[in-house]
């Protein structure tokens, strides 16, 4: 049986006013893989990532064309439900952004809003999510403590736990380790490898070493175009396009 892509993106174009940020990007993102997007600042990789859960919708004077299908359904169709989309496709930000609440309440926030679970089931869901984010052992006895008392690395994993609690299919990560120290980075990377057993992950990173370490596929963006997309191994050993080679070997960017 052929594996169906999680996301099928066809001829995606995106404009901020008169500035075109993405040019005819077409790419399939496969399930239970980590896809890394690399490229210099302003190349369109974060814009692309945010198109995948319609986070750009709120930015005024933007325009999108082309098609993004999530498991076959057009996420920009007029009847598409953005709340459901963002529950299925969660985003982890560059800087951890826990709510100024307890650790427990942060993770319980999504399920409470959705009204999906309560009581004992909610407690189990919070525990499962914290375990899923490899944070449970560190916070099991301090669930009522403020989330902001955690270290930055723990806060980032808490944000991942918060996301897991709403049972997503896809996790988008925008520079998830750029604010973290090397040990916290290693933990998040290890967590990503564990998470890909169940989730599809797309990560934007400035760290080429990180892309090489954690991802299965890598896409190189430049000036809004997807220049090359291939197995990570191939991209970092023998890229096909000269521009990719020049970027990853530090000749420009």
């Amino acid at each position, binding site marked *: 049986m052929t594996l169906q892509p999680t996301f099928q993106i066809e001829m995606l174009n995106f404009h901020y006013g008169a500035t075109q940020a993405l040019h005819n990007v077409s790419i399939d993102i496969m399930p239970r893989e980590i896809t890394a997007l690399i490229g210099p600042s302003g190349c369109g990789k974060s814009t692309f990532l945010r198109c995948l859960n319609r986070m750009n919708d709120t930015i005024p004077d933007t325009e999108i064309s082309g098609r993004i299908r999530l498991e076959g359904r057009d996420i920009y169709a007029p009847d598409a439900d953005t709340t459901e989309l963002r529950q299925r496709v969660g985003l982890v930000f560059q800087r951890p952004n826990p709510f100024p609440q307890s650790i427990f309440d942060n993770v319980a926030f999504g399920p409470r809003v959705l009204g999906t679970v309560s009581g004992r089931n909610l407690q189990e869901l919070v525990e499962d999510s914290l375990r899923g984010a490899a944070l449970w052992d560190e916070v099991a006895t301090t669930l009522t403590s403020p989330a902001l008392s955690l270290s930055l690395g723990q806060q980032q994993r808490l944000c991942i736990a918060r996301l897991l609690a709403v049972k997503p299919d896809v996790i988008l990560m925008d520079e998830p380790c750029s604010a973290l120290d090397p040990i916290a980075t290693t933990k998040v990377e290890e967590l990503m490898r564990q998470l890909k057993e169940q989730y599809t992950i797309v990560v934007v990173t400035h760290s*080429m*070493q990180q892309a*090489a370490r954690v991802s299965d596929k890598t896409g190189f963006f430049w000036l809004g175009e997807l220049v090359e997309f291939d197995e990570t191994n191939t991209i*970092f*050993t*023998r890229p096909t396009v000269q521009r*990719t080679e020049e970027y*990853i*070997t530090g*000749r420009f960017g």
Partner: protein
Amino acid sequence: MDNIQTRVTLDDSLNALTDDLVRLSSKIDTAIEQSVQAYSNCDIELAQQIISEDTIINEKRFEIEERCLQIMVTQQPVAGDMRMIVTGMNIVTELERMGDHAAGIARLAVRVEEVPKRDVPGGIFQISTQCRDMLRRSVEAFIQRDASKAYAVAANDDNLDTQYRLLFHKTVAETRDASKSTDHLLSVLFVAHNLERIGDRATNIAERVIFMTSGKLTELNVYDPE
């Protein structure tokens, strides 16, 4: 500082690596030439010099390997840079082994019975010239990152193998001649064998140059018993 250049440290390191490899290959080239000279002229002094210089070659090999490791650790190269360093590490191993072959020939010069000048078949000199040429051209392919030159080296190796086989059969046939010294004929075979192996190693370098330029791991040196 309004214009900071990127990659200065990495480019300097890669250039220094190339220079080191070129210098070492030149030492090996001389060692091969002199080893055949020492063997043919029964020049024990020169032979001993080659044997003792092999230690310097071995040390230089570790030095170059150390440099490669240092670049990997400090610069974390990828793609073409990474392939070049891996190639450098492979080439330095091949060069060191070529040095061993030259020292092997020098040991034969010392070991076999002393005569003023040996009756060395012309084929030995031809093979020696050809394998040194292959060495130089494989290193040139590396410096110039030229895959077509690398393929040409491999094509030359077939020619060298043919010459080696001719010499081998002729020398084996001569062992039936009671007037010829078997020790001497055996030493000729060993010298030829060492030279033929140097040709194989030049081909290995060529294979690595193809990897460096294209990322493809290729076997050029397919053994043909005939």
